[in-house]
């Protein structure tokens, strides 16, 4: 029998990760798009690392750092009551790191493509930085925001290595769909594995199709 729990967990993880990522990525992207600081290349590199690094590397280091034996993991546990190893919270944290470039890059490109006179016009009209960000800049990069949201969401659904390393395989807590598929195949339940796979396949297809439709301007009339 197919268990819906891993799928539900997958989407819960993707939704929370994407929401948090949006909040985190906007200031990072804004800073990267506008700074002339010398450390910009370093930060850009760090943000982009998950694109090339095997997910297992990221997962491995997170496992080491957050294990109760490590001072960081120990401190988090004692002072904040956070156990990031083999927990849903840990999965969220790892997913945020892992999908960071997929959210930051489109938003950064969006900010960079806006004419600087929009920001300046808003400033000389007496508007603060935050008013300018929320009323002028963000509304004018909606397609970039949407691209970031969709890509980060899709990428989180598809992750496997990081989740396996740091989350393990705890039903209802860390057993997401991609792991469930692996599990079922191991147990030779090809039928169930096929159902999980098919659902993920269809969803991933729909999500990516949306991105291309938006980027190609086909959906422009619905998105104003």
């Amino acid at each position, binding site marked *: 029998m197919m268990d819906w729990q891993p799928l539900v967990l997958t989407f819960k993880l993707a939704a929370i990760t994407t929401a948090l990522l949006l909040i985190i990525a906007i200031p990072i992207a804004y800073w990267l798009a506008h700074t002339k600081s010398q450390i910009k290349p370093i930060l850009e590199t760090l943000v982009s690392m998950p694109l090339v690094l095997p997910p297992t590397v990221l997962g491995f280091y997170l496992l080491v750092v957050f294990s109760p034996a490590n001072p960081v993991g120990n401190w988090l546990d004692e002072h904040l009551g956070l156990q990031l190893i083999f927990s849903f919270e840990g999965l969220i944290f790892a997913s945020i790191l892992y999908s960071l470039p997929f959210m930051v890059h489109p938003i950064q490109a969006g900010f960079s493509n806006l004419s600087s*006179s929009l920001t*300046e*016009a808003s*400033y000389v*009209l*007496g*508007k603060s930085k935050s008013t300018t960000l929320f009323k*002028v800049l963000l509304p004018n990069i909606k397609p970039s925001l949407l691209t970031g949201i969709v890509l980060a969401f899709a990428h989180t659904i598809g992750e496997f290595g990081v989740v396996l390393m740091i989350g393990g395989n705890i039903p209802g807590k860390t057993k997401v769909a991609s792991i469930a598929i692996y599990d079922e195949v191991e147990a030779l339940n090809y039928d169930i594995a096929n159902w999980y796979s098919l659902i993920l396949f269809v969803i991933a297809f729909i999500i990516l199709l949306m991105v291309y439709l938006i980027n190609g301007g086909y959906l422009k009339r619905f998105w104003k």
Partner: protein
Amino acid sequence: MIQIALQKKLTAPHGSMLLDIDININKGSLVTLYGDSGAGKTSILRMISGLLQADKGRITVNQKTWLDTNKGIVLKPQQRKIGYVFQDYGLFPNMTVKQNLLYALEKDQSNHTVSELIDIIELGDLQERKPEKLSGGQKQRVALARALVRKPEILMLDEPLSALDNKMRAKLQDYILKVHKQYNLTTLLISHEISEVIKMSDQVFIIENGKINKQGNPIEVFTTKQMSGKFQFSGEIVQIEQEDVIYIVTILIGINFVKIVAEENEVATLAIGDKVIVASKAFNPLLQKID
């Protein structure tokens, strides 16, 4: 009275250049900055508005200090009451014309200002449109109206008319003059059209390599020989034709062509494209009312 003293090292296309100016502007006057591109005109406007930091300087506007690097006073752009019309207009694409204007309102300001400006600058038919649906001249008018919502102490226009054709340009010049008078504004305009400078401004500063080269009344500044003729225009020679023993020189003044009879010795010093002053005595021209 507006006093502006600014110094800044700028990186120009051909190496670096020291911008160093010290000017006084009377309240209510329309002043142009004239000069080649790269002379530092835009940087001056940006420093006055606070978008660019001066290395050293002082700006006082009607007794208020906006900038005094000696005392460490640097007001943010938000704190300086300015209207700025950008070269690329800087209209917000996500807002309609009216929303662009409403955005500029200050917290305690009434919507009335916006509807008044929509009337004066004749934006009524455009107010529900998004900027992408506007022509260059229309965008310009919206940018002008938006810059006026805050009732600025200085209105600054960065080559607002350079992208427009002659007809549109003349119309917009009239809009700018109209609001300048109506709101008793102090206006700073960047232009590199002599005819525009002469038509628009009370005072002109000629900027060369970051320094003020000449200043004063536009006609006096641009006319090397100050003539008593009161019928004076500046224009550009577009054609020189010989007829009999005389020459007929065609000159473009604003959007009008005029023909002037000239003698051989004069024509020898003139070429097509030259900027010239056309002068006659006030006694000669005829006036006829157009019905």
